């Protein structure tokens, strides 16, 4: 094992020990799958949504904003994990009106921000060509749809391309709900 690989492992454990520890079951599956390089049988995902489902999923994108606001019960400031990124690289704030305000002070912290947003099923994207160094970002989902029977879903999430979602909900990257700079 090389010095770089050893040092990188030490940094990852130091910075992400909590995340790793809390994903024991997923890691067990990951480790099991790492031994199946040739034996595993590829299957198309049964949850891959059809075109119609994807249209429905785009509606769920907005619902996800509400869900994430519910999930983030308190204003949370996450400590960035990558070395070289300062303490307040980003913050996630619940506005209690169905929106979140995500403030990203350093573009280099985007990956770390997204790592922290994964638990809410959200993924932040920066619009290209934004010059501001400090960006106050607000999810572009101010209208909160209700379910046909009334009320709001308790746990709808929008996941990464690899993400299976809780409750077998459709998975879709947050393409239509990109975050926009407001300052």
């Amino acid at each position: 094992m090389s010095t770089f690989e050893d040092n990188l492992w030490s940094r990852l454990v130091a910075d992400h020990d909590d995340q790793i520890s809390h994903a024991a079951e997923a890691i067990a599956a990951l480790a099991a799958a790492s031994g199946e390089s040739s034996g595993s049988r590829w299957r198309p995902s049964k949850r891959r949504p059809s075109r119609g489902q994807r249209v429905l999923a785009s509606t769920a994108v907005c619902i996800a904003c509400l869900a994430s606001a519910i999930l983030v019960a308190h204003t949370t400031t996450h400590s960035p994990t990558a070395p070289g990124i300062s303490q307040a690289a980003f913050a996630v704030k619940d506005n209690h009106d169905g929106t979140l305000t995500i403030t990203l002070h350093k573009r280099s912290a985007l990956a770390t921000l997204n790592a922290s947003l994964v638990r809410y099923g959200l993924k932040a994207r920066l619009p290209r060509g934004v010059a501001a160094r400090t960006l106050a970002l607000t999810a572009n989902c101010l209208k909160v749809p209700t379910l046909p029977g009334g009320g709001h879903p308790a746990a709808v999430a929008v996941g990464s391309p690899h993400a299976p979602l809780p409750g077998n909900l459709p998975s879709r990257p947050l393409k239509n709900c990109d975050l926009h700079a407001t300052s």
Partner: protein
Amino acid sequence: MSGSLPGRGECSPGRAVRDFEVVYRANVAGVASFFARRCAEPQEVADLTSETFVQAIGSLGSFDPRRGTARAWLFGIARHVYAQHCGRLTLAHSGVVALASGLRLDDGEVEELAARIDAQGLGRELLTQLDGLPELERVALELVDLAGLTPREAASALGIAPGALRVRLFRARRRLRTGKEKR
């Protein structure tokens, strides 16, 4: 490896770290080489390798063993990380944003990564020869013939069916042969 894997009821935080280390050590060299074929700077290779594993940790819950192996999953993330990196490079070249370095490398690590970049010279040359091919064909050939993934793993990493991957691979190899014969 599979003999040491935990059962479902044996997922403890310490075990999670050990299991993830197994996955990390089995794949870090391959991921670093993937970036070494694309980047000339040791710092870039280090940052992108680190970012791949940070993003992997952030999306551990999204890993679905039915869709492929851990290696395929990590290479899928690595590909995504590189695409993000290219986006940031575009912004940096246009003066919109300054690129930040994440990891602080000591001289030994820099030297080691520089050697890895040199060692990937042939692979880089091959990628250059394939420059005119569609990206999917190029990456299919790289993942199978250079990174050593099985066609099924490469298909999983690229999010396509194995049959489609084999077609891409066949086309890429044929074009490579044709190009050599012409020269």
